[in-house]
């Protein structure tokens, strides 16, 4: 179909928001347009450049579109673009900057599980998984994606209010010789040196060491 005369203001701030490589295109509605604006979305693999329409995001009124499936190969880089329609007129196509899933994603904190004896606590950390299309699909840990991935672990003694930090490469940590009957709170962060990616610290997981036998 021939392109309409496009005098509608453009969608703004077209960008990817990515967490654990769940890559969602976001934008803001054109300035000064109320309700009723519809959008369509296309994307391209950098270096191939053939624009591909995203059918599930055709004539949508929301201002986001999940392109995780289309951008799941993190050895490629991508562009995406959005066009707005209202009352028979349209905007220009508005593009993202080049999106590199490997460096432009954010990483969730690791999962933390803690157990204790009377004088030690054991911490097991699990790195988040890369986004996948369906639960049946094989899981890929971000540990496989970022070989240099490390964990920073914080252990807070609730009685003395003293906080210790550990930096570990493997995902288990045992802290022996603790005080019995004392609450310890653990939180952990993922740290990748290059590309430089840090998750936030996980929420604290508190546990009390057993009373002295």
């Amino acid at each position: 179909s021939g392109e309409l005369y496009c005098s509608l203001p453009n969608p703004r701030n077209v960008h990817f928001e990515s967490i654990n490589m769940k890559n969602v295109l976001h934008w803001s509605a054109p300035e000064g347009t109320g309700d009723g604006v519809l959008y369509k979305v296309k994307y391209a693999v950098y270096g191939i450049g053939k624009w591909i329409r995203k059918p599930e995001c055709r004539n949508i009124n929301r201002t986001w579109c999940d392109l995780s499936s289309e951008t799941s190969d993190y050895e490629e880089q991508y562009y995406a673009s959005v066009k707005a329609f209202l009352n028979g007129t349209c905007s220009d196509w508005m593009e993202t900057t080049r999106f590199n899933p490997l460096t432009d994603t954010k990483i969730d904190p690791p999962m933390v599980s803690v157990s204790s004896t009377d004088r030690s606590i054991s911490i097991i950390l699990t790195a988040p998984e890369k986004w996948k299309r369906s639960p049946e699909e094989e899981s890929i840990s971000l540990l496989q994606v970022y070989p240099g991935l490390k964990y920073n672990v914080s252990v807070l003694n609730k009685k003395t209010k003293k906080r210790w930090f550990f930096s570990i490469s493997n995902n288990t940590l045992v802290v022996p010789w603790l005080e019995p009957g004392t609450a310890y709170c653990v939180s952990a962060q993922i740290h990748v040196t290059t590309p430089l990616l840090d998750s936030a610290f996980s929420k604290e997981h508190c546990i009390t060491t057993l009373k002295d036998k």
Partner: protein
Amino acid sequence: GDALLPAPQSISILSTNMKHFLTWSPVIVQGATVRYSVEFQGEYEREYTNGSWIPISECSLTTATLCNITEDISATVAYKLRVRAELGATRSQWGTTKGFFSRAMTSLTPPVLRVLADGHHVLVELADMGPSFQFHVLYWKKGQESRVWQKVVKEVSSVVHLDTMEAGAEYCVKAQTHVEAINRSSSFSPTQCVRAQGDTSMWL
């Protein structure tokens, strides 16, 4: 023209712990404020872009006689620096550093280390010295100086756990900085010793 204004003299580079500064003597012109501009040239510029120079914008038309060049001396190659004086439209000749400067020449000072004991645990606090630095921390049980453990600490966010100690034993710790980019280390900090908590458990 340029001839009236003398070129800055005594141009030198002060470099400590991978922080590099260019300094020079002021050009004195009675009743006037002389400004200075600084440029740098790496080995790449000498070999591949006909010896071109790159201005450092933070030190363009500055009245200071000091310029922080750390951000620009960011590869382990030989650099040259130059500075000239400017007074209105008049510019001096460039004053250029004698010889070359490489960041490998920086002087490395021992880290600021604080050793703590908390129950059976020995911990260290290290002052952050920037992303180029990691710390080699050596520790041993007092009296067993031949058996030394080493831990490499990169993240110095706060109190870093070093190890657990045998009840009642005294442990000694010292540390040096290491800069991988130039593959050099500082001398060691003074040794500090702490004593682990005595064992509270009673044998009945």
